């Protein structure tokens, strides 16, 4: 059977980064083709090319054998390509029915036919096994319900090709099962389904074929029978995995640098933890487990409202980032672009920013030659590759930007470092360098708290692992623990859910 969709040698580059490099992909009617890959492997970019959001630099897309070129998502939609997006594309203040029908509103005598919208929306949601009221405002729904609305929206069209980008990520077990059943039904109806996921049980359950992408390249495409979970994971992660992470500390950790007792706030409860000099404490957990909130609380960004925090043995109040900095906390934010760099300032000024932020207001900006020299030295220590430290930081690659921000904190010499998703979206070489820096900082006697969603990273880098679940610390594991064990704690170890999630 010839494929409904063929994508040949698709390439797409963003400024310096090649997001897709000569990727081939196809999908047949009535099959589920799963795409696997790590974050940044190019899955979403490939689907955005397919959906008309991005135009490929090279390559060809054929639909039913005929070449197509989408200039706008509406053209892809019209051609029968329907996408459930990973970032929700919903309108928060409009009703469920209005959202499902965005751009496809039925009319009667030129007027919106709201009754028809409501009826068809209700029917669609019923097919998904959901009874969300069609008149509800989307902002009032839970994330899972919003996800279902998004799916219903994509199903409204009689799609030839249906793309689902991690559709179960926010769904609970029951909703996820309903969705998987629905997918089998649509498959039987002859729809070509592209499914992106990294939940292995799910992948093995529904896939007919599996494609693995890594760093923008196609690793392989295989029939499900010919693929094992191990093979997929190996292909996703690549070979360098073993020697990727620096050796753990040889010596026992020293004095406790950070001590938290009974702390909490709106998102966190009963937090008790210690981080000692010389160790890297990894914090793992699912998306809304509270691990992000813990990082923000440690840095005074979303302060604790109860409990006690001691740094270096002294009780401290962390009500603002400034107070946290003064107390000896350094912070590498998770979203480099939005929270890390000041893009139009020079690399050097970025590295000097915290020094300047904490200096007397009218003191000379670079406190003279000395601190410029120190900044440059730190930037060199971090091996920031820039033609000139006077150049705007936005011109650097993500990895170099991240290193420059670490250099910013080296100027402060903090006792406690909070790293949030330190290697998200940066290339492999820079990753290794950042891990080494973290280890070196720990070896110099600092305490490091690393919040990460990247399980291999958590397991490979941390000396101890704290796993969060529903705003609490659910348990502690030693460094190098099995990823499965971390996942179990993260899921709250409750029957089915855990099994479904387990790798």
């Amino acid at each position, binding site marked *: 059977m010839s494929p409904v969709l063929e994508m040949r040698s698709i390439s797409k580059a963003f400024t310096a980064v090649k997001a897709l490099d000569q990727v081939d992909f196809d999908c047949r009617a009535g099959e589920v083709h799963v795409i696997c890959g790590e974050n940044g492997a190019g899955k979403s970019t490939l689907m955005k090319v397919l*959906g008309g*959001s991005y135009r490929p630099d090279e390559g060809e897309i054929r639909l039913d054998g005929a070449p197509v070129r989408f200039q*706008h*998502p*509406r053209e892809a*939609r*019209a051609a029968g390509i329907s*996408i459930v*997006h*990973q*970032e*929700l*594309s*919903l*309108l*928060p*203040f*409009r009703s469920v029915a*209005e959202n499902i*029908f*965005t*751009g*496809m*509103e039925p*009319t009667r005598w*030129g*007027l*919106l036919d709201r009754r028809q919208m409501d009826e068809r929306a209700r029917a669609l949601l019923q097919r998904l096994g959901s009874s969300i009221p069609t008149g509800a*405002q*989307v*902002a*009032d729904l839970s*994330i899972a319900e*919003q996800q279902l609305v998004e799916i219903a*929206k994509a199903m409204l069209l009689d799609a030839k090709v249906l793309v689902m980008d991690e559709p179960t*990520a*926010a769904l609970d077990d029951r909703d996820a099962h309903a969705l998987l059943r629905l997918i089998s039904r649509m498959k039987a109806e002859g729809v070509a389904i592209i499914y992106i996921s990294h939940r292995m049980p799910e992948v093995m359950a529904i896939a007919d074929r599996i494609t693995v992408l890594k760093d923008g390249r196609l690793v392989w495409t295989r029939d499900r029978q010919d693929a094992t979970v191990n093979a997929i994971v190996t292909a996703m992660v690549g070979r360098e995995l073993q020697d990727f992470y620096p050796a753990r500390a040889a010596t026992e950790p020293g004095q406790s640098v950070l001590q938290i007792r009974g702390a909490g706030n709106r998102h966190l409860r009963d937090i008790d933890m210690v981080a000692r000099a010389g160790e890297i404490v990894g914090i793992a957990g699912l*998306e809304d487990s509270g691990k992000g909130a813990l990082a923000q609380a440690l840095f005074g960004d979303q302060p604790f409202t109860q409990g006690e925090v001691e740094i270096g043995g002294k009780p401290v109040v962390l009500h603002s980032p400034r107070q946290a900095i003064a107390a000896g906390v350094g912070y590498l934010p998770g979203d480099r672009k939005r929270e890390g760099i000041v893009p139009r300032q020079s690399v050097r000024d970025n590295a000097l920013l915290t020094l300047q932020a904490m200096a007397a207001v009218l003191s000379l900006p670079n406190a003279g030659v000395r601190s410029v020299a120190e900044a440059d030295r730190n930037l060199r220590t971090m091996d920031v590759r820039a033609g000139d430290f006077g150049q705007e930081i936005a011109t650097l690659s993500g990895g170099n930007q991240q290193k420059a921000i670490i250099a910013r904190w080296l100027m402060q010499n903090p006792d406690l470092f909070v790293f949030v998703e330190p290697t998200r979206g940066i290339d492999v070489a820079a990753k290794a360098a950042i891990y080494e820096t973290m280890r070196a900082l720990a070896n110099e006697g600092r305490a490091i708290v690393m919040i990460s969603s990247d399980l291999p990273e958590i397991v490979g880098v941390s000396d101890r692992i704290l796993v969060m679940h529903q705003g609490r610390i659910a348990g502690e594991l030693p460094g190098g623990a099995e990823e499965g064990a971390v996942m179990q704690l993260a899921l709250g170890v409750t029957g089915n859910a855990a099994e479904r999630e387990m790798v």
Partner: protein
Amino acid sequence: MSVNATPVAMTRRGFRDVPVPVVVIALAALIYVTAAIVTGQANQISAAGLTGLLQRTVALGLVGLGQTFAILVGSIDLSVAALISTVAVLASYLMQGDPSMIVPAIAACVALSLGVGAINGVLVAYWGINPLIATLSTGLILQGLLSASFTFLSGSVAPSFQALAYQNLLGVPLPVLLLAVFALAAWFVLAKTRFGAHLYAAGGNPDGAKLAGLRVQRLVLGAHVIASFAACVAGLYLAARLQSGTPWIGRDGIYDLESIAIVVIGGTLLSGGKGGVLGTIAGVLLFASLDASFNMFGVDAFLKQVLRGAIVIAAVSVYAVRNRGHVA
């Protein structure tokens, strides 16, 4: 991966379930009645007094209706004040008191304002220029050309055109009916047509709207054309009302800022995607009753301006203060 729900939506309960426009209208009534009673002018609470009150809402209400479209789609229009002046001056200049020129003059004004709206839309939607700056600039250009060309009052509208602003139909002043018709039309478009639904989509989540296949740029352009057209109608009304336009009529009426204020007071989100016509009408009623109350209390004209500035800031901040991020 979540739709930004404002705290309002998540925590609303009880009293907060009352729609914003209703609260605003109640507030407007309270202010007006209190002022009338306190100043011993209870006669203001009569059919005649209320008609006078409604009459005050016409110009600002018309501009506000147009501004509602611009704001709903996630843009804003600061050029309305200059456009009002231009239209008012152009109408009286072209008519020169001659009734036969009424239609051509109106046509010219409409054509001009559609052009201005299209330019605003192109700058904002296609060139990607920040709407505040783009429309501020087009306003400046218009104002400059206008005051350079007409330094003194030139001509007046035709008497029969002027009469339109003073006539009554079934005891209701014609301009009030005009506003009502436009408000109804605007409500109809926003609530009952696909175009309206698409405007909400483009304002509420431009990326999502694009992914759903909408041509967001065209929608923004359309909203700007509507905003300019509404300003044109307001300018024509003012020309009729005052017999002739002056180059400062829009600026002195602060129609740019006040139209934004009434839209926001009515519960329309300044970032777009939520709100509607009813809120804007409620907002203009509130402003009119405040204005009427100042008059009843005999507030000095300049002091009135001070109060207006303070009220605009207060009104916008009521909605903006919950904003969690930084605003510049």
